[in-house]
């Protein structure tokens, strides 16, 4: 179980997170939907440990991790631009955490097979298409045996036509691991394709919502109100 309680974060005088509370259980893919700039990435950075919250707490499997540095949290993380290490091959990218005592060669092979990466292992990231880059990024995070996963708009660079193919693959892969997954997107269609549960971020707080359609209605209203 990945839980956050009453997270607050301000940048200078901008209060971005105003008490974010949520819980994601094992085998759950909770999709967080929100407009640009509402604080989704800020939340992700706080959970992964790159940013410190002003107050509030984060727990994983009951353990308090709020004060831990990112390297000790054991959370898998797929950023928006895939964040692949350009100087390393696909294989070296996916095996990256092994040198830190994470994951195993078996989990590497498992991920490679599951995500169809066998023939790409010796290529450099820039030789891959956007879809394959995000697969590698996912494989790399999962191969580290994370206790939970965070994905921040991981397939923004992928063509729509390919998304229809990649999303079910991601969903199946993530569900198979039975860990909590928080998936961030501003695209309600994408949310529906991947999620098992949904939340919306608005006004600095996160609230559960029954479906991506409902989330879409809410953010459409919000966008209209803000005049965009």
């Amino acid at each position, binding site marked *: 179980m990945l839980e956050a309680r009453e997270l607050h974060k301000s940048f200078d005088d901008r209060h971005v997170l105003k008490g974010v509370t949520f819980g994601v259980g094992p085998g759950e893919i909770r999709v967080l939907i929100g407009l640009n700039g509402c604080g989704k990435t800020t939340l992700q950075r706080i959970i992964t*440990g790159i940013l410190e919250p002003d107050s509030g707490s984060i727990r994983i499997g009951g353990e308090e991790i709020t004060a831990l540095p*990112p390297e000790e949290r054991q959370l898998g993380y797929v950023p928006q631009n895939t964040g692949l290490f350009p100087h390393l091959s696909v294989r070296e990218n996916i095996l990256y955490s092994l040198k830190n005592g994470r994951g195993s060669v078996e989990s590497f092979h498992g991920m490679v097979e599951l995500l169809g990466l066998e023939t790409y292992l010796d290529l450099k990231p820039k030789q891959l298409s956007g879809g394959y880059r995000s697969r590698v990024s996912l494989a790399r995070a999962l191969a580290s045996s994370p206790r939970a996963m965070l994905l921040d708009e991981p397939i923004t660079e992928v063509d729509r036509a390919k998304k229809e193919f990649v999303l079910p693959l991601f969903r199946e892969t993530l569900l198979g691991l039975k860990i909590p997954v928080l998936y961030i997107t501003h695209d309600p269609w994408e949310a529906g394709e991947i999620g098992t549960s949904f939340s919306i971020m608005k006004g600095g707080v996160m609230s559960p919502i029954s479906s991506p359609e409902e989330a879409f209605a809410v953010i459409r209203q919000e966008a209209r109100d803000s005049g965009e």
Partner: protein
Amino acid sequence: MRKVSIWEVLFVPLFFLLIFYPILAILGNVTLDGMAKTFGDPVFWDAVKNTLGTAFCAALLGVLMALGFAYFYIFHPGTVIYRIADFMNDLPIALPHTVAGLALLLAFGRNMFGFAGPTGLAFTLVAVILAMFFVSYPLAARTIASSAEEIDRELINVARSLGDSPPRAYRRIVIPLLGEAIFSAFVLGFSRSLSEFAAVIMFGGNVPGMTMVLASYVFTKVEEGEVSMAVTASAFCILLSLLLVLFLRLEVKFRARSKRTA
């Protein structure tokens, strides 16, 4: 007829007069006699050896320190130590290098830490290296830091989520991505060190066969009235710098090509 720009009119003659011509003047004044005397002078070869050796060490030290600076830039940019170091990087631009030499002399030119004689490190090869390092390090630091600035922070974030501590992420991600900058910083630092005269002579002295470098050799020969030897040594320096520039250019070209084909 095409109108000629004032910049063209200004640039071409002035470039030839002020930059190209003086270089030619050196090369044109090289004589066989001067060459024979200079190349037969063991002190000259000592100066060459000293120059290359000390400049190499200074450049190496400069790159190591610059990597330390870049570490602070990436992981502790808000700290006082980083701010001071960053500020100090710009200082030597306006500082006369005699001042740098004097500063080093006052700091290390006395009996300290119990391991040096009454003049401390002054007038030793270590002093020459330190003087060269002092004036070339900021160049290396700027080169490496400006390249570090371009590294996507998300890569470091990801590396940490995969279990890297900051020093480990620096070693596994940042340093490999700085490869080219490290090389440039080294060559630039080496070149800057080769050319240093004032700081070297203040702190390292000009002991023939000991701490004399090419720059001070040229100076000494002019002072002794051995102009033909000074000219030969100068031509030698010019060829050396041409080689370095060529090396840097070829390297850039080579990397550009291997990038395109990769």
